[in-house]
């Protein structure tokens, strides 16, 4: 069997099981110029979302970047599994992988965490989808185990990933990476997201609760944990701010809020979500 006809792809390890598992049909639920979103049936009930990305798209943690791609259109069928992605005449096989969960020391992250606020404070009001103060408060609440404010904003707002959802994702990611995400919080958010927001946003929130983020966020968190200079932090933050219309800012706000709250509070012993 010649493998030569396939084009390369660059895949997130988060979708490794789906790609290596048995072949299955999936449907493209939505597509933009930069990405097509697949609905993948999960054994039992429910579906997972996987993103097929063009090379210019933001590398979502649930995504696979396809080389030379004409992305499949909404409604079409894509076969995934057995190490490949097939759509019409075209097949892709991952030649390269990335891990969307950054490897860093939780202790270092929380120690330097509050520095992230400096990068946010200079940003203009209009860059945020959810006002900064509200975002910080929401994130702090989550860090304290109170999902109430978060549940109140899930799914509200335009776009494939509403602003409130981005803030929640930022906060959840930080808590997950720090081993401080209570499973109760996670479950509540997931349940709410499954009915009240887009499938894509729900999938990204789920990924965040496993500590899986976009590369720009991973680089920023890595820099924070490594004790980078203010200049380098600002530069990494700028890269994140370029993502989406307000997504980058909202994500960052969620991360910052959770970091500030966690910096002062000690880790709670019970119910912490341990690293996979």
């Amino acid at each position, binding site marked *: 069997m010649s493998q030569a006809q396939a084009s390369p792809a660059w895949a997130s390890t988060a979708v490794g099981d789906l790609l290596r598992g048995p072949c299955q049909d999936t449907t493209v639920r939505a597509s933009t110029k930069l990405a097509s979103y697949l609905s993948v049936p999960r054994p039992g009930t429910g579906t997972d979302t996987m993103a097929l990305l063009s090379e210019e798209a933001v590398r979502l943690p649930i995504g696979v970047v396809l080389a030379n791609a004409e992305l499949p259109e909404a409604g079409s069928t894509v076969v995934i599994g057995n190490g490949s992605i097939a759509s019409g005449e075209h097949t892709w096989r991952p030649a*390269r992988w990335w891990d969307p969960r950054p490897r860093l020391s939780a202790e270092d992250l929380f120690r330097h965490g509050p520095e992230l606020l400096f990068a946010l404070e200079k940003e203009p009001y209009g860059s945020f989808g959810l006002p900064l103060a509200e975002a910080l408060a929401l994130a702090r609440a989550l860090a304290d185990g109170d999902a109430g404010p978060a549940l109140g904003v899930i799914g509200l707002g335009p776009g494939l990933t509403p602003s409130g959802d981005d803030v929640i994702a930022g906060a959840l990611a930080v808590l997950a990476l720090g081993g401080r995400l209570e499973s109760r919080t996670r479950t509540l958010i997931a349940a709410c997201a499954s009915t009240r927001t887009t499938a894509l946003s729900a999938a990204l929130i789920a990924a965040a609760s496993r500590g899986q983020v976009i590369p720009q966020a991973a680089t920023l968190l890595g820099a924070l944990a490594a004790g980078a200079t203010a200049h380098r932090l600002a530069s990494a933050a700028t890269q994140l701010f370029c993502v989406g219309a307000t997504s980058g800012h909202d994500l960052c706000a969620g991360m910052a809020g959770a970091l500030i709250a966690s910096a002062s509070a000690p880790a709670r012993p019970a119910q912490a979500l341990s690293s996979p």
Partner: protein
Amino acid sequence: MSARVELRHGIYRDSVVLMQVSQAVATCRGVRAAIVAMATPLNLEIYERLGFDLAAVAGATPNDLLVAVEGDQAALEAASAELERQLAPPAAQETHGFGSAPAPRTLASALRHGGSLALISVPGKHAFVEAMDAVQAGVSVMLFSDNVPLEQEIVLKDEAARHGALVMGPDCGTAVVGGLGLGFANALCPGPVGIVAASGTGAQEVSCLLDADDVGVTAVLGVGGRDLSAAVGGRSTLAAMKVLDKHPGTEFVVVLSKPPDPRVADKVRAAAAQLKTPYLVAFVGRGQEDLAAATTRILRALGRVPTPPPEWPAPYDRSPRSGFVRGLFSGGTLCDEAMAIAADSLGPIASNTPLEPTWALGSDLCSPGHLMIDFGDDRLTTGRPHPMIDQSLRLERIVQEAADPACAVLLLDVVLGHGAHLDPAHELAPAIESARETARRAGRDLAVVVSLVGSRSDPQGRDSTAKSLAAAGASVHLSNAAAAREAVRLVEGADR
């Protein structure tokens, strides 16, 4: 029949490209002989042997491109057209507005526009200057080039240390950094193991065995074939170990090499003992544990449950038969490991890279008894592509061994991954079938054992390659040690 000979100046292509061009021209219909190569003394010899007139190229220098074609008139025209097509310059790279910027001619120039890793494979005597450009800009280097003078390697590594850069090489063929395979490298998932390797295929073996158990790497940092010599003292090895130790994502550090100079070995072990990260130092050779066993220890240290490495058994009769093991390898460390395992049970194993000097093969590479050849050794790769890319030498040898009644077991490695041949099974499977058929007609059951180095994501398809070779009659093993032991089992105990 006439010949057209010319020397061209100002054209330079690397030797691998020129071999492809030469072949493309030579296979034009009606061409009796052709050579397209830089006019080095070696190539001028080949030119002469092909029947061309040396006087026609008097005064040629190695910087001239030698083009010689012999054939009828139509063939010469076709060859000429093919040559021009092959030599057409690549499209200019960066275009901005008015006209395109010319491609940089030196690494110094290229790095002014950014870059965080330089991959250098220019001829060895020119490599130092390019590599210095990189390290002085604080950019780490993978240096594939070999034949770099020892003093230059030392100066380069000291300068790199001063600028906070890592030198992977010289003579480094494998690295994986940031999820990207450099040189001959397998497609690996990111994970907790950091590998420092003086041996490329050793690192490939370990990383593929880890991959089979779903464990990835943070990086594979090659250090080159001479880093652990007494003179170089492990400069890059020690630096690489520190990098991995500092890296938060690295939970385990592995150092892989052939047994080095004893004092350097001690230095490496002492440095490893200072690491905060758990580690394993594996010097592969006689009396040492094999790479599969080392991998099992790594997995246990990470808290994983190791599973036996995948195998694809063959349909042949597995009882021992009389005769000898003939190993044909492309990876030096794989050959070394197989020889070490085999020698323990079978005694002397003749080789071009023997474990004992008295076991050395002559230049005809033949021996009546057990033998294992490393086709990737420098002396067998002068002027030809590496066996991981071009299997012709091994395929010829398979035919030869199939006809030899003394050959009971053929042991082969097949190394997959980026940079390697895109479909080795395509040529190898028929060759194995044919070899077994030749033996069967002479009343022998030739066993073929394959050591497969491959990851689940390799472009050639690990499992499809294995199945294809198994269908041709080989038993395929992901563990090189297991393959070697299978080969030994197939001859041990039988009457010689």
